């Protein structure tokens, strides 16, 4: 397929394709981080993860609406405020859900699956009743749309760059939170041995609630970022949930590093295959490979070494 193209053309396509892979990578990391915290650290199978993302997207929509109508002069920076609001809204709802639903089901993972699936249906219908069944268009300030021209033939999507920066910030924050702060130590202690953590005076209930809240908050941030590249509708969360679980499971559920590594592998494989094959075929091949690898390594790419 490369016959008849100049080297310059091919070079710029390769550069743009490389960027496409990286931007898919950051989208995947952003999607999966929240779930990696909830599923990986807490062992809760949260089927409503996509709906928490869409909550973030709707918060962004509302913020953009408010800024357009009441604060048009600040519209160009509304997005950053929207991200923070999305984090807070999704996080608070997450804590509420943990308090009202999840905490009763910690020892029953299959029941959490059903309960959170039900929760996702409820949330979808709530969005539909509040915002209408149709997709809403989220306005973006001009500087966030369009492409940066690196050369005559190389254009880099600006929204891809923003997602990338956001992903790096969130990933670093989560890393610091879990591995460098006292609170993170408590989270890890509760996860590895709840009874013992309780015995040494850690308030396990509070830790659980905060962990779940932060996981959901990160999902909200992801949803907010995805208003730039995807659709905002009551059921849009369903578009992300399969990929998200795929990445977390493939990476090894308990390892954040695994999540990042698996997001990288899957995104690169998919964007390369999509370039050479059709989109559907690429999807099929990636899934087949993941299934194959998981058969050989059921625990995923990375595992925490813990004494049992």
């Amino acid at each position, binding site marked *: 397929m490369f016959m008849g*193209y100049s080297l310059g*053309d*091919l070079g710029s*396509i390769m550069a*743009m*394709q490389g*960027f*496409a892979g990286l*931007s*898919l990578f950051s*989208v995947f990391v952003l999607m999966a981080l929240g779930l990696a915290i909830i599923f990986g650290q807490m062992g809760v199978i949260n089927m409503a993860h996509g709906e928490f993302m869409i909550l973030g997207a709707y918060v962004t929509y509302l913020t953009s609406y408010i800024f357009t109508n009441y604060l048009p002069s600040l519209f160009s920076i509304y997005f950053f405020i929207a991200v923070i609001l999305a984090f807070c809204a999704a996080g608070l709802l997450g804590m509420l859900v943990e308090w009202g639903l999840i905490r009763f089901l910690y020892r029953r993972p299959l029941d959490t699956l059903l309960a959170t699936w039900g929760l996702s249906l409820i949330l979808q*219908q709530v969005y*539909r*009743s*509040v915002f*209408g*069944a*149709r*997709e*809403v*268009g*989220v*306005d973006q300030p001009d500087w966030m*749309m*369009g*492409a940066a*021209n690196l050369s005559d033939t190389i*254009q880099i*999507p*600006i*929204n*891809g760059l923003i997602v990338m920066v956001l992903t790096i910030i969130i990933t670093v924050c989560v890393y610091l939170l879990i591995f460098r702060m006292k609170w993170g130590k408590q989270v890890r202690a509760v996860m590895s041995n709840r009874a013992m953590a309780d015995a040494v005076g850690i308030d396990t209930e509070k830790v659980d609630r905060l962990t779940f809240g932060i996981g959901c908050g990160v999902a909200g941030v992801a949803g907010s970022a*995805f208003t*730039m*590249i*995807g*659709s*905002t*509708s*009551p*059921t*849009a969360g*369903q*578009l*992300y949930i399969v990929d998200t679980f795929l990445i977390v499971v493939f990476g090894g559920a308990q390892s954040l590093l695994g999540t990042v590594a698996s997001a990288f592998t899957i995104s690169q494989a*998919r*964007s*390369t295959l*999509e*370039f050479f094959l*059709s*989109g*559907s075929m*690429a*999807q099929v091949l990636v899934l087949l490979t993941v299934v194959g690898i998981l058969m050989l390594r059921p625990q995923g790419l990375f595992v925490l070494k813990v004494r049992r």
Partner: protein
Amino acid sequence: MPRRRVLEGMSALTGAAMLPRTARAAGPPTSAIDTTGLAVTDDTVTVGILHSITGTMAISETGSVEAEKLAISQINEAGGVLGRQIKIIQEDGASDWPTFAEKAKKLLVNDKCAAVFGCWTSASRKAVLPVFEQYNGMLYYPTFYEGLEQSKNVIYTGQEATQQILAGLDWVNRTKGAKTFYLLGSDYIWPRTSNKIARKHIENHLTGCKVVGEDYFPLGSTQFNSVINKMKLVKPDVIYAIIVGGSNVAFYKQLKAAGVDLSKQTLLTISVTEDEILGIGGENIAGAFACMKYFQSIDNPNNKAFVAAFKKMWGEKSVIGDVTQAAYLGPNLWKLTAEKAQSFDVDKIAAASPGIEFKGAPEGYVRIHENHHLWSRTRVGKALVDGQYEIVYETPDLIEPNPFPKCYQ
């Protein structure tokens, strides 16, 4: 919030409007116009509306429900059908195909509906088709679709694929001098069949034209950067896109973000109506061309009255896409057919349908063909920033529906 309230309020209101409230000229006796035990009384006739108002498809189907209710309330205000006011029983298909079949059976067997207006996806239509044939019901189906189907029990008020596709390709070849086409689609029956027809037409009927790429993405796919790069490499004259649902939004946003300028790169789509632009955002799709039979901006008295009535009933902000207009045709065609047949009997309606003309259609004159599809014009519109289309081309004649195109298989 307001939209939902309006919706609920409206359904209550239409319900009230159904009650007999004015003295009407008495129609023919019930025994004469209903010989098969349909739900017809001396002053009412019951019809069904069967669409998804919950689930994924609610996005698309809401407009159809609104248009059908508008048409029915207008017919009732004008005195009803054969002297009878139309009563509506609405069921929710819930975006789930077995549910559609079950509800269709309920509407036909329990409620004895004289006609049903409904379905949107081909999958839901395929699910209810055996039910309508077994219990001899009458379905008015509004969506443009891939063709390859014809039934005594269905009137297809949207366009079948050849009607929608061929004129658009001819137009882009003639006016833009397009020679190379890149076909793109969501991975299911409608885009695949449509692209197959498009490819045959490009390769066999347009001189010197060829297809330089064809790609499909799973439904709901949200990442298009790779295929956009591929298209930047092969530089097709025309991107021919049949992407649906949430993917649509992602595709056009990413196209814009990748620096593809739709005022320079010709893009022709058959899957983006004004409804979809609400989600995509006018600024992301402005400059693209769409090919279908109806745009809200059509300039004729019928359409102006229709748009005004629609906005009055469903709110100033509503937009009307191709399918919404096609859904509006259903009750009107059924009324005209019943009046011609002087009967609600399904067999008589089916037999009387061919040749029925609806001069008041917002899209302009339409007529039912022998094969139960509609003769209609096809138009090309250019997307504007405000989410509307500017019509740039209209076929001079009505196009004959051809659901089983011989040279396109």
